[in-house]
């Protein structure tokens, strides 16, 4: 008889039980999760993965080459995707491997949660080459740290600055704007701020929509972070170390600025860091993060009391993330409804691979399942990240694709896996008699596997 605690720990907090995992967790699901919070977060050990600075430096150089070639009439447009796509494949494959093999799957889920919170999407220029290194450099090392540090790391990362267009944003009274204005003699000035990053930091990354900011705060905050840029770009943005964060004082809007009623003296780039530090500690931020965590780990519409307690912990421990996670683990609400969350396609795929001990084979299209089932890694399509409610993922066509994929997988595995033996090891206390019987009576090993992966208790976590 499997225990519910281990089942929920492995399937809801973790990434899906591997054979033997439930047994090794035993009766103490909470202890198993708490233990994962000790020790530095594991890095992805893969020497082939390049830093974002390296990738971006080369991408900028390639872009210059393409532009020069175009002047002499040659079309090299394809060179950039040809350079970036293999990087994406390697990064996404390494991430997939990490998730399937993880011994601290709770940590891996948290990493994915935060990457999605600070989402970049590969449908924008350069992001295919940067999304993976962004996660490795700005998210993964900080998941067991302080939210404020995670926030600063994410916003200052070149991937984020490029994704939300801040690298080109120029203060209207900055030296650069004044020079440009003089040159153009009052003509069509197209130099100025871009409020994209400023807005999304407030709306998505910290306070949350309705968190108490105004259009004035958005615009002013955007001027605060003018000059936060990336080195080694083209034209006016060539100076600075290629592919790394650079502060351009020339583009920075001078003077003190007031955001959310507080005045910040102009200290160059630090002005932005100070605003971020205050945002990290704002009660609206605590509530926003608490809501998202509760939605991810408790239910689509989490009990308000649970959200309030998480927000309180966030504030009380000054944004110390492990303290927040421990509060979450201790909450009875997180352990009451065993199948409250419908799996996302990525959850479904990763839990299948873990449960069936499947290798992530880099040589054989390892990312195809994500594409087929509708959740390409690092492509949420918007800075809001992937949605996190059942209704966003439980479409009829989406379900049919999961079933077809599970059936095809069963066909490939044949009798090399025994669904009847695996079912209790994967589904634990959630395994129903109906599912057990259906698998036992299946006409073939393929069909048994299709039924295991189709089971209502496998579709959810």
């Amino acid at each position, binding site marked *: 008889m499997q225990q519910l605690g281990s089942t929920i720990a492995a399937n809801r907090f973790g990434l899906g039980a591997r054979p033997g995992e439930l047994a090794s967790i035993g009766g103490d699901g909470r202890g198993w999760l708490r233990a994962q919070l000790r020790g530095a977060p594991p890095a992805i050990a893969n020497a082939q993965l390049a830093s974002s600075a390296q990738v971006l430096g080369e991408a900028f150089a390639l872009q210059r080459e393409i532009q020069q070639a175009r002047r002499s009439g040659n079309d090299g447009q394809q060179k950039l995707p040809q350079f970036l796509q293999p990087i994406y494949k390697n990064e996404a494959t390494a991430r997939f491997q990490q998730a399937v093999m993880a011994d601290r799957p709770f940590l891996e889920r948290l990493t994915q949660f935060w990457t999605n919170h600070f989402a970049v999407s590969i449908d924008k220029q350069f992001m295919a080459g940067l999304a993976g290194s962004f996660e490795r450099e700005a998210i993964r090392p900080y998941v067991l740290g302080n939210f404020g540090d995670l926030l600063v790391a994410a916003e200052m990362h070149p991937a984020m600055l490029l994704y939300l267009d801040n690298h080109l944003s120029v203060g209207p009274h900055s030296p650069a704007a004044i020079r440009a204005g003089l040159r153009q003699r009052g003509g069509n000035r197209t130099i100025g701020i*871009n409020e994209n990053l400023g807005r999304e930091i407030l709306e998505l990354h910290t306070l949350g929509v309705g968190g108490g900011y105004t259009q004035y705060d958005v615009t002013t905050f955007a001027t605060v972070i003018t000059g936060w840029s990336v080195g080694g770009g083209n034209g006016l943005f060539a100076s600075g170390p290629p592919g790394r964060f650079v502060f351009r004082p020339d583009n920075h809007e001078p003077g003190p600025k007031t955001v959310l009623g507080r005045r910040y003296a102009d200290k160059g780039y630090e002005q932005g860091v100070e605003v971020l530090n205050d945002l990290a500690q704002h009660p609206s931020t605590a509530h926003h993060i608490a809501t998202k965590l509760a939605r991810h780990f408790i239910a689509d519409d989490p009990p308000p009391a649970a959200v309030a307690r998480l927000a309180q912990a966030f504030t009380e421990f000054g944004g110390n993330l492990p303290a927040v996670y421990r509060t979450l683990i201790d909450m009875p609400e997180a352990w009451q409804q065993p199948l409250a969350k419908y799996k996302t396609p990525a959850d479904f795929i990763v839990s299948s691979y873990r449960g069936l001990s499947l290798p992530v084979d880099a040589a054989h299209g390892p990312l195809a399942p994500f594409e*087929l089932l509708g959740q390409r890694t690092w492509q949420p399509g918007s800075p809001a990240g992937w949605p996190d409610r059942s209704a966003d993922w439980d479409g009829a066509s989406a379900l049919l694709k999961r079933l077809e*994929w599970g059936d095809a997988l069963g066909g490939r595995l044949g009798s090399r896996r025994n669904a009847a033996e695996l079912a209790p090891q994967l589904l634990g206390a959630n395994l129903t008699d109906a599912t057990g019987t259906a698998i036992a009576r299946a006409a073939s090993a393929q069909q048994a596997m299709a039924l295991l992966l189709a089971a209502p208790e496998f579709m959810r976590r």
Partner: protein
Amino acid sequence: MSAMKRREFLRAGALATGGALVTSRLAFARVAATERRPRFVLVILRGALDGLAAVPPYGDRDYGHLRGEFALRAPGEAKGALPLNGFFGLHPSLGFLGQSYAARELIVFHAVASPYRERSHFDGQDVLENGTALAHAAQSGWLNRALAAAPGERRREAGVALGQNVPLVMRGPAEVTSWSPSKLAGLDDDTLARITDLYARDPLLSVRLADALMADRVAAEQGGAMVQDNAAAPNMAPATAAQPQANPPPGGAYAEIVRAAAGFLRQEDGPQVAVFDTTGWDTHANEGGAEGQLAGRLAGLDKGLATLRSELGPVWKDTAVLLVTEFGRTAAINGTRGTDHGTATMAFLAGGAVAGGRVIADWPGLSSRGLYQGRDLLPTLDLRCVLKGVLEEHLGIPPQPLETSVFPQSERARTLKGLMRG
């Protein structure tokens, strides 16, 4: 007459004319083809399409300096806008829509907005889809609630979302399905039967599976044409399966979706309403003018609409296609040659059923005093007026549910009349 009774009546008619072996379904299709059966396509343009670029008000004296190098020129000039009414033009990438306007099959709305007045994409889309004045005020969408309020008996698959999942606008009490092309092999009947059994006690999965199978059947009746994705060869014979492509052409998936939508709507016994969405309209940087990033996107959209028309064939005359976006963008170009989140924008209503060839706009002007909060196009038309007009006149949704369940507390958004051909 209820659908059931009508079917029986039609079957009786078929028998009387000697068609003893004709099934009721075919009889229904044959006879129903002679009566008007409206089709509706909703296209959600996610990311906030710049209405001043798609429908440039070149006649406004402030337009030129606000848009600077990206201002579109008047029709007739080099790379000029396509003509509408002497004041507004269409972006030169929108050739099909330009022809539709000339053929009186397009209404252009301008300075239109949902009730949402903040500048978050995600909340803006929520309001656009949920049909209330507030984000997250409803967990269902106006289009679904409209289908639920439609008179008479509706088939289960009255609406289809093209995509794996159903967007908020189509979620709700009326049963709708979703469909997307699959590169996977179908399940055999025995496995399917066993999974259906396994889902018998699961209210969500049992309904989803049944809906998916129904959509698949409808798709299969199209002989596989819906999974073909080859815009370059529109007249090719139906493909047996989609060819996996290493490097799909831009808009490839979009073209596929458009074909699928047409495939469903062509059927006399299929869904009447289709929804799909497109992304990539969030042009904060390097938006471009007559050419450039946005121009390319618009061209892709326009081409998709042309495909929709040709794929719908004779059904086009009964069709209305509405294109909406969550909000507009700043009137002026920003510091990175793009535009930031704004307020009012344009909407398009195209199709053979549309009483088109008109621009409907109470133009607030682009002077600094005319702009909303000094930066955005001021909304002068509530988008719900348009939505109500289309739902009432085209789909026959009665006014009472429109004012209550479909768009609660919207009495100030008066139904726009006369959008459809009589």
